[in-house]
């Protein structure tokens, strides 16, 4: 082996070893000061300044800020955070850099509106974002749909929701259900049916796997809520008729003439507690259900909350 080859081998080994050692030390240092890398900072908070500083490459910068917003939300949601202080500024910068970036409005609103830990608990900010989106993309009916969604789900403002759906229904190529939703909102009727229609629409209008899975979870929870409501009404009727609570679900089924023991969407029979409460067998499987839960039960946080 000649001298040059030896030096090459030694130098190559030094490069690899030094790199590995520096990476190792850096990891140790990160463990010593976890806040240094974990802290969220927005160095430039003015959308106008950023737009100028982008030198015309604002489209790419908007994509970067949108990805940052997704990562910020995802990271904090994963840690069950109660505050999302940077979420709206990140979304505001994103949408000012690229006002046509429709996903930032749609998903941004669904990050902002639900209460923590499922979202930032800022429905007013979500509405502000959606209105800016509609201002810049008036021909996109989905934005009106999302605005109505926030008004209905998070603020229970039926009139505003009806207005948003009605406006959206006038947009060319709008989905026909926009008119139906506007009418239902105006009547305040069919709470379960309306919610089911909204979540079904969310499922149909998104190609994102996570969003669709989330919509399915909500639809499952809606069925549970509806089943439990009806069964609880049956228990009340039984009590009024007989002056006592049914001792078992079988007795209730017989007395009400139901077809078999009612089961949840997973096929597990609902149970009847001695106190007359109808409950789920496995409540953990329905994180968005609001009825049929044991007292004190806290569901695990999921992507989009349902304030049904």
């Amino acid at each position, binding site marked *: 082996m000649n001298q040059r080859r030896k030096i090459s081998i030694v130098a190559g080994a030094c490069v690899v070893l030094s790199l590995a050692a520096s990476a190792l030390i850096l990891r140790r240092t990160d463990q010593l000061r976890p806040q240094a890398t974990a802290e969220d900072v927005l160095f430039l908070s003015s959308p106008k300044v950023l737009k100028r500083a982008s030198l*015309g490459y604002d489209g*790419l910068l*908007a994509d970067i800020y949108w990805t940052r917003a*997704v*990562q910020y939300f995802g990271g904090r949601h994963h840690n069950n955070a109660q505050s999302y202080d940077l979420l709206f500024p990140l979304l505001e910068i994103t949408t000012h850099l690229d006002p046509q*970036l429709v*996903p930032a409005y749609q998903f941004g609103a669904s990050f902002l509106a639900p209460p923590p830990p499922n979202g930032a608990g800022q429905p007013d900010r979500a509405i502000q974002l959606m209105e800016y989106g509609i201002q810049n993309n008036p021909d996109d009916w989905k934005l009106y749909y999302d605005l109505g969604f926030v008004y209905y789900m998070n603020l229970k403002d039926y009139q505003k929701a009806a207005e948003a759906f009605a406006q959206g229904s006038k947009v060319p190529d709008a989905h026909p259900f926009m008119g139906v939703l506007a009418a239902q909102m105006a009547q305040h009727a069919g709470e379960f049916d309306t919610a089911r229609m909204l979540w079904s629409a969310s499922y149909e209008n998104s190609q994102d796997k996570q969003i669709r899975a989330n919509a399915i979870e909500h639809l499952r929870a809606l069925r549970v809520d509806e089943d439990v409501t009806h069964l609880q009404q049956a228990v009340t009727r039984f009590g009024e008729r007989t002056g006592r609570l049914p001792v078992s679900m079988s007795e209730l089924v017989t007395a009400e003439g139901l077809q078999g023991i009612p089961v949840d969407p997973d096929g597990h029979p609902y149970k009847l507690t001695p106190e007359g409460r109808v409950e789920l067998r496995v409540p953990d499987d329905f994180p968005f259900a609001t009825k049929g839960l044991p007292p004190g039960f806290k569901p695990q946080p999921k992507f989009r909350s349902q304030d049904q």
Partner: protein
Amino acid sequence: MRARVVHIASNTFREAVRDRVLYNLIAFALLLSGAAILVGQISIDIEKLVVINLGLTAVSLFGVVIAIFIGIGLVSKEIEKRTLYTVLSRPVRRWEFIVGKFFGLAGTLVVNTFFMAIGVFAALFYVSHKFVRADALILVALYFIVLEFLIICSVALLFSSFSSPLLSAVFTFSLFVIGSFAEDLRGFAGMAHGFTRWLVTGAAYLLPNFSAFNIVSSIAHEQPVAAQLIWQNTLYAIFYATMALSGAVLIFEHRNLK
């Protein structure tokens, strides 16, 4: 005359290739393929947007850097290596040398952009699995980027004809940045009065205006481009590059090379 310009241009192109300028294509390919794979996992619903935005931004930025850093050395390097004297001792006029250098660099950038465009379309196909009619608009954006390069090349050559490489780089890059703010400059002019207004308006027309060339964001959202904008940008780029190139020829013709 035309043969001499073509010879100088082809030699400039060969020199750029020898200087491994086209190696930037490897970095570009890695950047784009990495983004195409990664973005789907870390973001939501913007895979195609990122490929278009990142692809066209990288084409533009890589090209601007190449245009500036090669353009500034086109004349000074020839003087430094004393090869300019050999060239000019032959029946080659000074303006032919400048024009040949310009076309050589422009050719390098066009070839570079061509390969990058293939990369952009390949990445687009990877994320979308198909092409739609609106994707053809990307070609318009690429054309505008090439027009932008022509202006930057001519400006770099202008500075290179009388200044040192370092100062030429600073001047050219500054003009690129100012050119990106051209719309604001017009806005300031509109707000000013009297002599200041005249001065700022004059500066706004003298400095290159790149804002009309940047249509990447609207292309990414499949917004159509007016045919009028295409030919107006073409004419603007031709006139501005001709102006800067003529200035370079004027200075270089009177430069004392002894």
